[in-house]
């Protein structure tokens, strides 16, 4: 099981702030994960319709699309940041 956490409008569109998912073995990279999540229902489709606008963190560190997610305890998905 991998913990997924969502923030800002990604959280609002998916309709929850976190969930534990069993990811298929074929989901190896961050890019694979985004593609997989879009198959889970229209709320995911709506949240991820512009994949380039989604930022991903593995174990609370920023991660690029090609990075492998094997062993991740927590994966965060969120829009570009607007703090400060």
């Amino acid at each position, binding site marked *: 099981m991998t913990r997924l956490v969502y923030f800002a409008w990604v959280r609002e569109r998916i309709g929850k702030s976190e969930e534990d998912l069993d990811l298929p073995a074929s989901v190896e990279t961050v890019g694979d994960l985004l593609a997989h999540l879009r198959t889970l229902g229209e709320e995911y489709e709506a949240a991820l319709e512009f994949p380039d606008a989604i930022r991903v963190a593995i174990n609370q560190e920023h991660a690029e699309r090609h990075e492998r997610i094997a062993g991740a305890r927590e994966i965060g998905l969120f829009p570009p940041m607007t*703090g400060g």
Partner: protein
Amino acid sequence: MPVPSILRPIVSVQREDIDTRAIVHALTDGRTDVGALVTFTGLCRDEAGRLEALELEHYPGMAEAELTRIGEEAIGRFALLGLAIVHRYGRMEPSDQIVLVAATSSHRQAAFDGANFVMDYLKTSAPFWKKEHGRDGTEGGWVAARDADDTARLRWKQD
């Protein structure tokens, strides 16, 4: 040669208001080597009367970790003598403080550059998001990231 001690930034992610005076005291009290202190405070604007409030959401844990990473890089890069980064979350009204960066150094340019660097990186990599609430009662939606912030960050790239 003495091994330089590893200086860690003071980092706080908090709901309550920012006590700048206390932070500055923590960085300067009893120090006779500090020649320069630069503070940056980010405040909530009302956007010409349009805005009632901002709601700041953050990624607990990652926010602290990311601010610490940015702070450590700034300390090393500009040889700062001290650095504090405080970022609030929750609801802010116009004129409320949102963020404080305070940097100390021997000479003035390092403190200016250190604080400026932290703000540029914070804007584009610290996991905080702003949602606007309009004075007309509308939920104004999430603030969009600005290309200008990415550009500002690029100026610190080293060859």
